[in-house]
């Protein structure tokens, strides 16, 4: 489809690690989520992207989504505190580049797309990232996806409701039918 081609083309043009300056000013307002996260490192557009992309990767279903369990705040805290200065720069510039690529190919910031469009766009970015592109904005997508998943699946909801978690298993059984466990172990 047309948008996919556009994404591919943009990615091919940009290549490598992208250090394009943010072309977006601070946008006012944020989506009403009830998430008490107050960004301390991300600017408003970076925060909006983080929330919308994290929720696209892990949406609310019969269990809570990324925003409700506080994944965006977790991600910012990781980037701010655990990442090295260089990793932090790569992540922040990755956020900006992701949105600028999105703007170029869709005419919208990612956060402004409808949720169907967000899923379609992110799915395509995921597919491209898994192709043989070694670096750049596509690599950033997997970095973002991983951080989203780390935040979600180490949360109480992710670990206990989506996956299975036993704080005190009590014993070890090395070979049993999967259905007796039912879901992947969180840890």
């Amino acid at each position, binding site marked *: 489809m047309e948008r996919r081609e556009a994404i591919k083309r943009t990615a091919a043009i940009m290549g490598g690690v992208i250090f394009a300056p943010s072309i977006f000013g601070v946008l006012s307002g944020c989506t009403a989520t009830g998430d008490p996260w107050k960004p301390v490192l991300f600017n408003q557009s970076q925060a909006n992207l983080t929330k919308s992309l994290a929720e*696209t*990767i*892990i*949406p609310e*279903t019969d*269990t809570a989504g990324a925003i409700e369990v506080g994944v965006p705040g977790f991600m910012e*805290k*990781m980037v701010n*505190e*655990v*990442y*090295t*200065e260089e990793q932090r720069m790569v992540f922040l510039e990755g956020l900006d580049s992701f949105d600028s690529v999105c703007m170029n190919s869709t005419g919208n910031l990612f956060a402004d797309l409808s949720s169907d469009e967000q*899923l379609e766009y*992110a*799915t395509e970015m*995921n*597919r491209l990232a*898994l192709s043989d592109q070694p670096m750049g904005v596509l690599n950033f997508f*997997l970095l973002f*996806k*991983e951080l989203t*998943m*780390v*935040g979600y*699946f*180490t*949360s*109480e909801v992710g*670990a206990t409701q*989506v*996956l299975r*978690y*036993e*704080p*005190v*298993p*009590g*014993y*070890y*059984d*090395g*070979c*049993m*039918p*999967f*259905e*007796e*466990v039912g*879901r*992947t*172990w*969180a*840890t």
Partner: protein
Amino acid sequence: MNFIDFAQIMNINIKAQNSNTYDAIVVGTGISGGWAAKELTEKGLNTLVLERGRDVKHVEDYPTMLKDPWELPNNDQLSAEELKMYEKQSRTGYTVRESTKHWWVKDPEQPYREEKPFNWIRGYHVGGKSLMWGRQSYRLSPMDFEANAKDGIGVDWPIRYSDLEDWYSYVERFAGISGQAEGLPQLPDSVFQPPMELNCLEEHFKQSIKDRFDRMLTIGRVANLTEPKDGRGMCMSRNLCIRGCPYGGYFSSNASTLPMAAATGNMTLRPHSIVNSVIYDEGSGKATGVEVIDSETGEMIEFYSKIIFLNASTVNTTLIMLNSRSNRFPNGLGNDSGELGHNLMDHHLSVGASGQYDGFEDKYYWGRRPNGFYIPRFRNLDSSNRDYIRGFGYQGGGSRESWVAAVRELAIGKQLKEFVQTPGTWTLGMGGFGETLPYHSNRMYLNFEQTDKWGQPTVVFDSELKENELLMRKDMMNDAAEMLEAAGFKNIITYDAQPPLGHGIHEMGTARMGNDPKTSVLNGWNQIHSVKNVFVTDGACMTSSACQNPSLTYMALTARAANYASEELKKGNL
């Protein structure tokens, strides 16, 4: 000074000496120090146990033992800023976490120099590394004690397996080692608690390498209880051992030996006590005590005793000895041979292979087994037919890929949440633990010019892997891949991270045992050849490294030496 003043001073000195005098002093509270404390106090000796770090009480002082993943900030990772405090301690990649950071020294406070790279990983607190150890527990074999003599390497061990056999059993009965008896000559069986289970894929791999190579795979022999013992509960398969266990499910000084020592009423435990040197009396030819720096006040205090056990960990025990200089021993206590600080060994590791396996898709496991499998040494057993001598064992494990694998999958959104609920492909990996030979040129020494904040000289490391180890590593990598291939694995990846010595956290050998005082520091009872009332029973005493995890051997050597020491003391020989 008039007569009255002099009498008063004499009186005060005698009082101080009396209150600071014990039958025995044990320096260090880790695996071997805990055993020395237990054995000596149980023999009725009034024993002072010195620990350079803070006190850690069993259960009470394990602040993170019950934390769930979501209760730990930043996915249990340290902030980049805080990680700077643990630059060397974190080199292993697994040791320093938010949930374990309180167990490791802060590198800027505990500096050392690396003439060649060396990972010196330490925890300064009551219990030492016995709280964070990997708990793998293997006996050395008759072959290991004979190897140096046979190969003409280093010096001969002054003892044989038969000297230690009963002491292995003795410490195993108390510590609690789970494992499977296999009857292998190169890896004698311990007194075992019931073994943990292998999982489906590990069972398949075991059968496969038995059929194809006639090699053994056995469940790891581990100091985790599979049956309750002496007030300690059995392992609950949480795999959070390193945080401290609320059940006492694994052997540590804090859970096991020190409570027994305390129960005798004969132990005085003194934390915050850095031993600066051993006091040597030229007249009697004996050590009379130790000089201690109180790490909180900076005060220098002397304690006296009839016998002294040095269990400060290999490098720190050696530091204390090198720093105990006198007219008789200008180059360090008991260093007539010049070998003190030399022959530094470790196990060389971080080399092996892993692969994926198609099958057992309907199978899974319950619990987080704090253990893996072990493949006992199979190279150079009957004859040396490789281009290196000695050998290696493997430690490894099988598991199914978790949600992490889904990062590199197409699934996203609702699909992703469903996808991760089914575990991924079975994978199995293993890494070798190789014997390191004792080389005189592999050494640690003291820098007396650069002192730490307590005025102690700092340690310098000058050691490296040499040709025998490097040649062995090729087999360690290729044999692993070959076995995986034969067992039907796919996507096999080999690796050799080439870490420096110290990475195994099995440093040993710097005050070796031997028959000849001219070429070794300790005799067959772990006594300093020339100062018989000082015993060294931590890793410093090791004459060769073998390839088995060494802690069980330190336990057995310590129990043996402590019982000998108390008998000799009774006979008036010390």
